[in-house]
């Protein structure tokens, strides 16, 4: 390896990569090693981008990088490509390969390949608790001896083995790259030697690994070589000359054989294995009971977030704390002390930063999202999502998506912005576009969902809302799936073991989410208040409102609700909160509440989500989705209004 390119201060600290298959516990280890929170959940594809932290190894500080899961060197999805890029382009000083103790048979081939790549490698065998539950004992000294690299068993969730991992990392960093040099068979070895011998430039990966990649027909590797070599033609000519047929099979086969041979001496079955599927698991994946469970989960979510959070807690904060105490006190204080009306209007009054912005943020939305995030972390950490994916794969296929899309779609109920990033885990461009569209159009985020639950008058209205929104979502997705070209998706998903959520992770995840919420939301709330205040001063506000009032009145809503839709451009939940205000003041009828809530749910994605759409999907798609959302929202609002009038509601 060549490290002489590095000079800037940023990179002086040694760089250590955490690499490994999805859901093996990389982020849990990252958190234990750095103390910096990383998203941890029990489904493959939690981490979709790198996160960087600092770890102390007995006084030596290193830069630790957590990466998205990567099952092999053949990257399929964008999140995997991120990890591959880190591995092949950053010249890490050390790679910690994290594997699942129960699945070493399919993960050690990558360890072997990493060693061939000339990296310093430390193997962290995580979740040994689960290996023991399966009835095995493992001899890790033997594994270490055979692989020729440090091997550390860990139980990351309980912090076991972390100190040992630290010292192994430090020792490896101080030494030279080492480890088992495998023989990949005469034919393949010969081809590798020949290709490696004509590579003359400096590369961030070893020539042996690069040669293997070239023989595998890897396009990135070919690009790298074409850029670096003075005479790239020599390489391409040689590659054409050597037989590349069956290289992949030969490589996989040899690595698997070597792994099996090693594991024969490492793993010992001490007890008969338990049944492959527990009762609960059977229950979750059975179409009948599974659907019942899904219904129960939704009802529980409604009771917890919609009733306890959104109604009881919000009522208290809204009526007793803000409306009852803070707002009147503040307003009368401001009226007495503030000589300037404009300043009064900025802070207090009807639309002020405190009386409106902070009230929405703290009294209405914060309690709702807190409750939601707690419930959500149970869903994420238990391993329920992959089961749900399997359960509704057939339904989603009709909409051009695979079961895997459940993950971003359900995450959207937490935050549509983050969920839009998570569409990276989907295999095809078509699926990514369709999922992004669904998220932007009709998946309400936690805050909006909570407000909607709180303001809809009764369970029947909630049901109508659910039916209309999901119906529209399905119809639009169905039509879109016919219009967006691309192949039918396939569904292949690992089902991780069901796990009991750790209270520590739940608490931390909820707190991190709340912190993120406040950081993103408060400035936006304030910004919205300031903009509206400025707009009112200059008269722009009235112009925008009169423009928005046209479609709003067309769908039978009071003119005042145009303000709520204006808020909707900033964040989905502001819009809902604006409607909530109107409903609480008794300014809307049952019909108007329902129509407005349906419309605001389908209305535009918020600013942050729009920016992410722009980044992930490009300008054309993002703008198209935006326009589609506004059109569909008002069209559906109009239809629902007409139907209800006809029905005499």
């Amino acid at each position, binding site marked *: 390896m060549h490290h002489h390119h590095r000079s800037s201060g940023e990179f002086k600290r040694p760089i250590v990569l955490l690499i490994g*298959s999805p859901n093996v516990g990389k982020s849990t280890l990252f958190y234990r090693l750095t103390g910096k929170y990383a998203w941890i959940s029990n489904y493959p594809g939690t981490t979709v981008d790198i996160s960087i932290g600092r770890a102390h190894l007995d006084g030596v500080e290193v830069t630790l990088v957590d990466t998205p899961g990567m*099952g*092999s060197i*053949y990257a*399929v999805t964008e999140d995997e490509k991120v990890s591959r890029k880190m591995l092949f382009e950053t010249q890490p000083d050390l790679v910690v390969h994290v594997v699942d103790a*129960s*699945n070493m*048979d*399919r993960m050690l081939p990558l360890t072997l390949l990493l060693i061939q790549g000339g990296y310093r490698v430390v193997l962290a065998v995580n979740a040994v608790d689960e290996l023991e539950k*399966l009835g095995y004992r493992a001899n890790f000294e033997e594994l270490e001896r055979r692989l020729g690299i440090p091997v550390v068993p860990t139980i990351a969730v309980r912090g076991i083995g972390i100190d040992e991992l630290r010292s192994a990392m430090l020792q490896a960093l101080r030494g030279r790259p080492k480890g088992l040099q495998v023989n990949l068979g005469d034919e393949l070895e010969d081809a590798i030697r020949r290709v490696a011998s004509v590579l003359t430039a400096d590369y961030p990966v070893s020539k042996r690994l690069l040669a293997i990649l070239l023989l595998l027909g890897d396009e990135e590797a070919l690009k790298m070589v074409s850029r670096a070599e003075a005479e790239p033609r020599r390489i391409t000519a040689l590659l054409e000359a050597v037989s590349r047929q069956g290289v992949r099979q030969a490589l*996989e086969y040899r690595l*698997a054989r070597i792994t099996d041979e090693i594991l024969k001496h490492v793993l010992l079955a001490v007890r008969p294995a338990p049944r*492959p*599927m527990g009762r609960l698991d059977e229950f979750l*994946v059975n*179409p009948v009971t*599974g659907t019942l469970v899904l219904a129960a989960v939704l009802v529980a979510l409604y009771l917890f977030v919609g009733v306890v959070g959104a109604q009881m807690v919000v009522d208290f904060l809204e009526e007793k704390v803000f409306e009852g105490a803070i707002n009147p006190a503040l307003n009368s204080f401001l009226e007495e002390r503030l000589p300037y009306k404009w300043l009064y209007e900025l802070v207090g009054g009807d639309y002020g930063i405190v009386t409106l912005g902070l009230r929405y943020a703290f009294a209405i939305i914060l309690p709702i999202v807190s409750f939601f995030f707690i419930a959500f972390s149970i869903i994420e950490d238990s391993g329920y999502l*992959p089961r749900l*994916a*399997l*359960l*509704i*794969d*057939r339904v989603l*296929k009709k909409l051009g998506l*695979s*079961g895997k899309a459940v993950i971003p779609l359900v995450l959207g109920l937490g935050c549509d912005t983050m969920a839009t990033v998570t569409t990276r885990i989907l*295999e095809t461009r078509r699926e990514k576009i369709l999922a992004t569209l669904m998220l932007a159009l009709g998946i309400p985020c936690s805050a909006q969902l909570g407000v909607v639950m709180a303001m809809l008058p009764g369970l029947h209205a909630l049901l109508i809302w659910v039916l209309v929104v999901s119906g529209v979502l399905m119809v639009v997705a169905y039509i879109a799936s016919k219009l967006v070209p691309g*192949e*039918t998706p*396939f*569904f*292949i*998903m*690992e*089902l991780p073991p069901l796990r009991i959520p750790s209270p520590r992770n739940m608490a931390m995840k909820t707190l991190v989410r709340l912190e993120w919420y406040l950081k993103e939301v408060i400035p936006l709330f304030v910004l919205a208040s300031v903009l509206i205040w400025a707009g009112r001063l200059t008269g722009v506000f009235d112009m925008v409102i009169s423009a928005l009032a046209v479609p709003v009145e067309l769908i039978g809503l009071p003119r005042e609700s145009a303000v709520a839709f204006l808020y909707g451009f900033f964040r989905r939940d502001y819009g809902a909160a604006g409607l909530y205000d109107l409903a609480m003041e008794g300014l809307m009828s049952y019909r108007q509440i329902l129509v407005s809530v349906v419309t605001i749910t389908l209305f535009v994605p918020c600013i942050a989500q729009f920016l992410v759409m722009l980044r992930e999907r490009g300008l054309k798609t993002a703008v198209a989705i935006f326009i589609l959302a506004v059109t569909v929202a008002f069209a559906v609002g109009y239809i629902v209004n007409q139907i209800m009038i006809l029905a005499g509601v």
Partner: protein
Amino acid sequence: MSEKLENLVRDLWIAIKEEGREVGDKELSPYDLEELEKAGYVRREGGRIVLTNEGERVGRKLVRLHRLTERLLSDVLGMEEEVYERVACRVEHLIPEELEEAVCTLLGHPRLCPHGKPIPPGGCCLSGKRYVETVVHPLTELEEGGSGRISYIYVENPQVMTRLMNLGLRPGRRVTVLKRFPAYIVQVGNTQVALDYEVASRIYVVSGPHH
């Protein structure tokens, strides 16, 4: 037995048993005839060549193998007629006896070769189903709880292949079907994987008892 000898026995069987022709001892070279006699496949009866019991058994078997091979090459491997005719004559000699029934069952016990000539039935054809268990078929045909060894995976999309490989679904590995509906759940090693029907039907396994 040499390839040449095998082909002779086969042709004799077709002529005598199938077409009901009489074959005179002048139709073969004296050297070949002697070899065949020495091996105990034919004897001479008044200027005619007659197959012994052993000759009849072997000839029938070779014809069966030849025509099954033709079917295999044309149906499964999609070879053109002039290609498979040439290849069949060589491949049939390479198929070990144990695999003959597997090939036949794989092909669904065909009655005719691609030229329309009858394929002499084997034990597997008569007992039908009993042997289906031991040959290659898609994972989707396993019952819940059934298991098999992956023989090959037939997918065009390299992404699907990579996904399966990463999860340990590769040739040589044992898989068990845990659930078939609403999606397939299979166990390979200590990993459980959910698959849709499309993907599951592309994974071919050899089922049957453990060894």
